C-alpha cells in the first residue's frame, strides 16, 4: 500500500529550480533512500514531502489524503503524530535531559508526565542509551545524541519517518550502529522511512533508492 506520494513536485528558489517535477512513492513500511550530489534537491524534496514547505506545483499525498493543500496548523499536528523527522544534528533541546527530550512529543500530544516518561525510557533502552537518560545532550557523544534523537522521532509511533543525513556528523562505526538501529526499529514498527543521503553506503541500508540530479528523479535507479 502506498503511504506517501509526491507527484510532479516542483519548487523554485528565485531563479534556481531546486526540484523539477519529481515523482516519488513510499510504500507503508518501506525504507526508501533519496540520494544525489549536493544541490541535487534532496533536502528540498524532504521539506516538500513532509509538509514543512509548500511546493510551487505538484501534489503530495499522505495516507490517501492530500497534504500540501492543508493549512500549517494541520500539517504541524500531522508531523507531531504520524510523521517523524530526524535531522543530521539531532537538534535535541540542550536544557532538557535525554529522557525529557524523548518524552517531549508525547507531552505536546497530551500524554501524562508519567506515561510519557515510561515510553521515553523504553525507547532509550531500545536504542542502548537507557544509561544516559538523565544526561543533557552536551554530556553525550555524537552517536548517543543521534540515538536519543532517533528515539524522540519514533516515540509517537509515526507511520513515516523523514531522516535527513542522520549519520552525516558521525564516524563510520557510530554511523553504522545508528543506521542499523534505525532500520531495525523501523522494520519492527512498520514505520516507513524516507532516508536522505549523499552516501551510497548509507543508501544501501534502504530497500530501494531514488537518485536525484539537478532536481530531477533519474529514471532507472530504483533497484
Amino acid at each position, binding site marked *: 500500500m502506498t503511504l506517501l506520494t509526491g507527484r510532479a513536485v516542483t519548487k523554485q528558489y528565485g531563479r534556481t529550480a531546486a526540484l523539477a517535477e519529481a515523482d516519488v512513492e513510499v510504500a507503508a513500511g518501506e525504507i526508501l533512500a533519496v540520494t544525489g*550530489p549536493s544541490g541535487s534537491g534532496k533536502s528540498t524534496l524532504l521539506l516538500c514531502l513532509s509538509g514543512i514547505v509548500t511546493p510551487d506545483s505538484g501534489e503530495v499525498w499522505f495516507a490517501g489524503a492530500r497534504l500540501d493543500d492543508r493549512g500549517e496548523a494541520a500539517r504541524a499536528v500531522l508531523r507531531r503524530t504520524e510523521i517523524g523527522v530526524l535531522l543530521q544534528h539531532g537538534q535535541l533541546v540542550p536544557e532538557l535531559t535525554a529522557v525529557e527530550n524523548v518524552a517531549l512529543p508525547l507531552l505536546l500530544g497530551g500524554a501524562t508526565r508519567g506515561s510519557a516518561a515510561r515510553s521515553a525510557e523504553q525507547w532509550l533502552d531500545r536504542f542502548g542509551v537507557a544509561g544516559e537518560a538523565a544526561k543533557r545532550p552536551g554530556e553525550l557523544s555524537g552517536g548517543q545524541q543521534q540515538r536519543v534523537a532517533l528515539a524522540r522521532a519514533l516515540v509517537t509511533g509515526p507511520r513515516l519517518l523523514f531522516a535527513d543525513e542522520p549519520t552525516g556528523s558521525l564516524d563510520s562505526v557510530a554511523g553504522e550502529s545508528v543506521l*542499523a538501529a534505525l532500520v531495525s526499529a523501523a522494520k519492527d514498527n512498520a514505520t516507513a522511512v524516507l532516508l536522505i543521503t549523499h*552516501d*551510497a*553506503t548509507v*543508501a*544501501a*541500508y534502504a530497500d530501494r*533508492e531514488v*537518485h536525484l*540530479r539537478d532536481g530531477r528523479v*533519474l*529514471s*532507472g*535507479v*530504483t*533497484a
Partner: protein
Amino acid sequence: MSTRHLLLGLLARGPQHGYELKRAHDDALPSAKPLAFGQVYATIGRLERDGLIEPAGSDRVAGPERVSYQLTHSGRTTLAEWLDAVETPAPHLGGALLEKVVVALLAADRDTATRYLVQQRAAHMARMRELIQVRQTATSVSEAAAADYTITHLDADLRWMQQTAARVDALEKEIRP
C-alpha cells in the same frame, strides 16, 4: 580490459584500418596502456573470423596496402549488448567502468553512457545491500572485515560513477570534439 569491444566501439564511428584504430584507442583512453600493433591486428583477425567486422576497402599510401574494416550487423548487435550489460560489482573494476563509458560515447551518445552509469549504479547498490546483510549477520570479525573491504571499494566505484555522470557532457566533447 576488453580490446574486442573497444575496437568495435571505435569502428562504430565508421570504417578504419589497424593503424587508425590504434591511434584512436590511445587518444580516447590516454591513461590506459597503449595498444600494441600486434594486439590490434590479432584482435581484428578474430573479429573478422567471428563475423563481427568485414573489410570495407583498401588503399596504399607509400607502403603496404591497408585494409579498412567496418562493423557487420552482428558486430553492431554484439556491441549494443555489451553496452547494455552491467559489470559484476567487485573491487578493482575502475578500468572496465571507464572503458564502457568511453565506448558508449564513441559508439553512441551521452544518453547511452548515462543509461549505463544509472544501470551500473543500481547493480552496485544491490550488491552493497547484500554485503551489508552479510556484515550484519557475520559470525566472525574476519567475515565482517571481508564484507567491509568490498563495501568500501564498491563505495569508491559509486562515487566515481556519480562524478563521471556529472561530467559526461564534458567527456563527450573531449572524446568526440
